[in-house]
């Protein structure tokens, strides 16, 4: 560790030891929209030194005094060449013009997988790719596109869950404009919470995390949203099979203040209403039920001057399930001539979702030092409410007395997190050989893991006697306050012309329930350039995570419970090493092959037999902690230039778990495959865009079947003397060799999508036709034993039960229409 800090010190001192240089700084933007360009290259042809723009489109390049031949480029845009004499610090902003020739193709400039970058295990995914990938219901989805990358696995069929390099779905840090988001799924995980219309840039880090990222073990998905066009008003509307989206962006004050808003809402509930009405005709019950989700993004950007900008972002997304059931007046005969009237009203409401609001202020302190200050508030909630009112009245015709019995039940389940974040980040470019990032953040978390409320009220009047009784109780109302703090420093260092290294450390701490968990997380990744196009990269990252997601279903459920590290539950941590070769094969494609090994500690699982539904104990009593291993090889061939683009990704991997601590034993303490351990995972994505009027895409995925736990043997048991006092043989017990002991059939699916674009007088319309699961493969969603359905095995043995699979998505064609102006 000492040596590591010595190295950091050397890096810092070298950075300050450079003299007789001047610094160029500024912002690179799209000339048509004014959007800042992330990852644009700024290169001096004379010295060969260069840099790339940060996530705010800013660059800083310190060069020796003298003639400069600056080249500013970003793939998909015309390159700007600028020659001048550098004799003082200068602020130079450049506006790049989209290239008409390249406009037809989807390309990117700076790719973390690029052979020359020191970053490894990272992928930048162009938004155009995301919009082009064919998906379920034709609804462009950020996470579905990310799932097609090597090293990333989806959960169950159609799910937007992400399992990166053998990690769990809670081990991914989703940053929306730099602010963490908790629930990133809608509709049980079939759709992600990110509206692709609002997104500008997406980068996925699967390992070798730069030190400025912290808080999760397995991946970081860094999403930046659009600032908004600062020249003129633009917008669009899209009507799809399941949702409608709108977006609008433009200047509030031209070239100074912009806005961008987008919204999406599903309408399955609206379509359902007429059918519910028809279904309840002629019955005593009026029903109103439905489900929908929505999300809303808004962002306002204000440029005070070239050195100072303010961004205010807002995101809100919710899923809502509701049901109301009301009986009509229902007169029922009771004793003798008496008649009673029975009424019942039931309501169910279930809401879950995020709210994120943030304000960021960029300020260029000097040409070499750039600062960003962020204040953010995040709210995640998961609220269930159930109410029942029943009123029964009857008249005693003998006495004329009106009697009644009334019951009111209100039950609720609430869970959620409130985060308040303060953060400051600095980019320091002392010279072209060093790009230093440092900063710190503080998050105050308020966790409300489980609060259950139950209120029961009973009122009764019989004759002249009134009785009232009831219960009003709240369980588990234990709010947990926690403080998370983090500081980091990293340097992207060109050591020689062939060796580049990113070295840094992330220091974090978590204070909860009187206990403090510190963590020093070294990060290191390096590149050796073997030729102009070929490099070898290797990296190491130690990561710590202070949050857990308790989940025991195969799909992303709103019941998945975010819980913090506590005085009893220790933080998760992971060591990951990765190494690989990267080759830029001209304009043909980029190739990479990467191997990784990851060891994870204190992973959390539900105990055997436990689930969210059990209310007998608190969540801490239902969980156990264990270890995990994952290792594998990833291959990626990606073409981003030309009419044909796309990629082929393949992953060979293995992920295991072991829970063997006393009292926390799972699967007999033996090592068992993780829930989403898959040996093979292949994805092929092809996109074709010959002109501005038409484009098409095709994707095919194949992966080893998900694992499932099947009790392959049943055996007799005796039971304890509970009810009758006799010891007797009861139902058979189920014998598991180990958890996840059975493989479902392999999963494969082909999707296709075509877009027809037409320029109209006021904009462009697009018809999209998508087909999900083109050859109608019946992929297993879950498998289970079905009794009473005989099965003859391949060896001729006849069994009384059979194994069946449930497939949920057959071939699904969809059509959507969108209009942009």
């Amino acid at each position, binding site marked *: 560790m000492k040596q590591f800090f010595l190295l950091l010190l050397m890096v810092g001192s070298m950075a300050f030891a450079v003299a007789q240089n001047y610094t160029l700084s500024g912002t690179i933007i799209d000339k048509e929209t004014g959007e800042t360009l992330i990852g644009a290259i700024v290169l001096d042809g004379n010295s060969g030194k260069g840099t790339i723009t940060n996530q705010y489109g800013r660059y800083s390049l310190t060069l020796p005094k003298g003639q400069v031949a600056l080249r500013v480029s970003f793939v998909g845009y015309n390159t700007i060449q600028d020659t001048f004499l550098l004799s003082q610090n200068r602020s130079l902003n450049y506006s790049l013009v989209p290239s008409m020739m390249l406009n037809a193709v989807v390309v990117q400039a700076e790719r973390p997988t690029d052979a020359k970058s020191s970053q490894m295990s990272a992928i930048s995914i162009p938004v155009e790719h995301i919009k082009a990938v064919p998906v379920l219901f034709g609804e462009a989805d950020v996470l579905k596109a990310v799932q097609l990358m090597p090293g990333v696995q989806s959960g169950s069929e159609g799910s937007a869950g992400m399992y990166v390099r053998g990690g769990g779905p809670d081990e991914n840090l989703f940053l929306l404009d730099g602010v963490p988001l908790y629930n990133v799924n809608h509709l049980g995980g079939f759709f992600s919470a990110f509206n692709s219309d609002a997104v500008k840039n997406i980068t996925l880090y699967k390992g070798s995390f730069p030190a400025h990222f912290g808080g999760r073990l397995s991946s970081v998905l860094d999403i930046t949203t659009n600032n908004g066009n600062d020249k003129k008003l633009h917008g669009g509307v899209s009507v799809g099979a399941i949702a409608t989206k709108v977006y609008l962006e433009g200047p509030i004050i031209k070239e100074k203040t912009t806005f961008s808003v987008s919204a999406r809402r599903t309408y399955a509930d609206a379509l359902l209403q007429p059918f519910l009405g028809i279904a309840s005709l002629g019955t005593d019950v009026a029903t109103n039920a439905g489900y929908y989700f929505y999300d809303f993004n808004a962002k306002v950007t204000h440029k005070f001057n070239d050195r100072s900008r303010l961004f205010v972002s807002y995101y809100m997304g919710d899923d809502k399930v509701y049901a109301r059931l009301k009986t009509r007046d229902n007169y029922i005969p009771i004793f003798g001539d008496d008649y009673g009237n029975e009424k019942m009203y039931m309501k169910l409401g279930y809401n879950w979702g995020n709210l994120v609001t943030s304000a960021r202020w960029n300020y260029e302190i000097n040409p070499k030092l750039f600062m960003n200050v962020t204040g953010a508030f995040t709210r995640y909630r998961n609220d269930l409410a159930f109410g029942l009112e029943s009123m029964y009245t009857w008249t005693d015709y003998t006495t004329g007395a009106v009697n009644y019995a009334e019951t009111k039940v209100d039950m609720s389940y609430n869970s959620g997190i409130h985060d308040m974040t303060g953060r400051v980040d600095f980019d320091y470019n002392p010279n072209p050989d060093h790009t230093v990032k440092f900063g710190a953040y503080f998050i105050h978390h308020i966790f409300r893991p489980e609060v259950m409320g139950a209120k029961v009220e009973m009122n009764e009047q019989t004759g002249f006697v009134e009785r009232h009784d009831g219960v009003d109780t709240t369980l588990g109302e234990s709010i947990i306050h926690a403080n998370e703090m983090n500081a980091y420093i990293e340097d992207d260092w060109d050591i020689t012309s062939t060796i580049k290294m990113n070295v840094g450390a992330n220091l974090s701490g978590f204070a909860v329930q009187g206990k403090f968990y510190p963590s020093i997380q070294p990060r290191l990744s390096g590149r050796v350039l073997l030729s102009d196009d070929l490099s070898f990269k290797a990296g190491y990252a130690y990561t710590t995570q202070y949050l857990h997601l308790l989940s025991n279903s195969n799909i992303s459920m709103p019941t998945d419970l975010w819980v913090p590290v506590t005085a009893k539950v220790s933080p998760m941590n992971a060591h990951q090493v990765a190494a690989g070769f990267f080759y830029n094969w001209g304009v043909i494609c980029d190739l990479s092959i990467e191997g990784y090994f990851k060891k994870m500690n204190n992973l959390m699982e539900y105990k055997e037999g436990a689930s969210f539904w059990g209310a007998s104990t608190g969540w*801490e009593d239902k969980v156990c902690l264990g270890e995990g291993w994952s290792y594998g090889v990833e291959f990626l061939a990606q073409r981003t230039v030309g009419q044909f683009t796309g990629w082929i990704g393949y992953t060979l991997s293995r992920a295991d778990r072991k829970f063997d601590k006393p009292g926390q034993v799972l699967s007999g303490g033996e090592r068992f495959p993780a829930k989403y351990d898959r040996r093979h995972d292949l994805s092929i994505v092809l996109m074709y865009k010959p002109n501005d009027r038409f484009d098409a895409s095709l994707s095919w995925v194949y992966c080893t079947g998900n694992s499932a736990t099947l009790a392959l043997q049943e055996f007799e048991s005796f039971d304890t003397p509970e*009810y009758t006092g006799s010891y007797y043989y009861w139902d058979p017990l*189920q014998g598991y060799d180990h958890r996840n002991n*059975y493989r479902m059939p392999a999963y494969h699916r082909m999707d296709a999508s075509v877009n027809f674009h037409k320029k109209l007088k006021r904009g462009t319309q697009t018809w999209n036709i998508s087909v999900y699961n083109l050859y109608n493969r019946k992929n297993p969603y879950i498998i289970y034993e079905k009794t009473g359905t005989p099965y003859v095995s391949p060896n001729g043995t006849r069994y009384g039960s059979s194994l069946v699979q449930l*497939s949920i998505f057959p071939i699904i064609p969809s059509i959507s229409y969108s209009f942009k102006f």
Partner: protein
Amino acid sequence: MKKIFLIIFSLIAVAFVSCETPIDFYGDETDSKITINSYVHADSTVSMHLSFSRFFLSSLPFQPINNAEITLDVNGVTQSANFISNGDYKVYYKPQPGDTLTIHANVAGHDEVYAGTRVPKTASVSDMRVQEIVTDNGYYTTQKVKVSFTLNDDASVHNYYCIRAYIVDTALSTEITRDSVTNMPDTTYSKVYVHENLSYTLEDVLLVDNGSGLGAIEGAIENDMYSYYGNHFTFNDDKINGRSHQMSFEVEYIPHGFYVSEDSRVGKGKNSYGYDDDYVYVDFQNPRIVLEVESLSRELYYYLISVDKQRNQDDLTGTFSEPVTIQCNVKGGYGVFGASSKAFFEASINFELNKKKK
């Protein structure tokens, strides 16, 4: 527009049509294993039941093993088991607390299976007290018996307990002797069990603190430690090791009398409709509450806990619960070979309300 809505609705409808398809079972159809079920009671002959496990898709009944060669090693001395019938075997030896037992079973065509256990010492209980509680909430009267006692845990060994309570009455025959039923002690009380759903309210914050006092992770006891389904409460001594621990619980009391099978009743009676019946209603004569404190061997404890968990999963259906591995100690097979010893304590109950007016 109509067509558009028709198309949209059709697409949504198609999307949510689920499809259930029988699939082949890929993999080895695992061979049946020998299952041993033997609940050894101190001072009772050792009995066991052997059967074959079955492939999970099979709906055939379990096949009892009638041709097994079974030996029981007691403190180094080997004895053979006698076949009784239908997979049941007995060794006519009555183990004592402290005995170490190992069973070996050989069945033609199968590998030998074996298991070992140690008969635990009888639990030490003192200061048993009974308090009768009558409550009236305006609707009905509830009668409860609160039983308090001190459990004196032996620090020198790791102990596992199961406590239960029941009511006995002189109207019942006090003992039943069974000869052919396996997994039962030779002699048991004929008892009226308290109602399953109203059975225990254990007032023991140390053992049944469902909040956060239990030490879920470090204490390593939580769900593995206790279960109180039905009429028993199973726990270990992780939190009370070597201490004299005060315990108390409340038992709902069935007033007046009880239904009981004819063979365990003293005398003959009629059912509530006035007819002779197998099950008859009997008035209490001299009801007593019995506290049974059973010491379990480690193997039996983990087996029983896991059986409870597999059968009583959190969400009832098991759909969302994690699978539960049964903690078998039979090497090469399934089942359990475990031992227990019991201590009984009695106290009279004298509710005035219980006395049926004649």
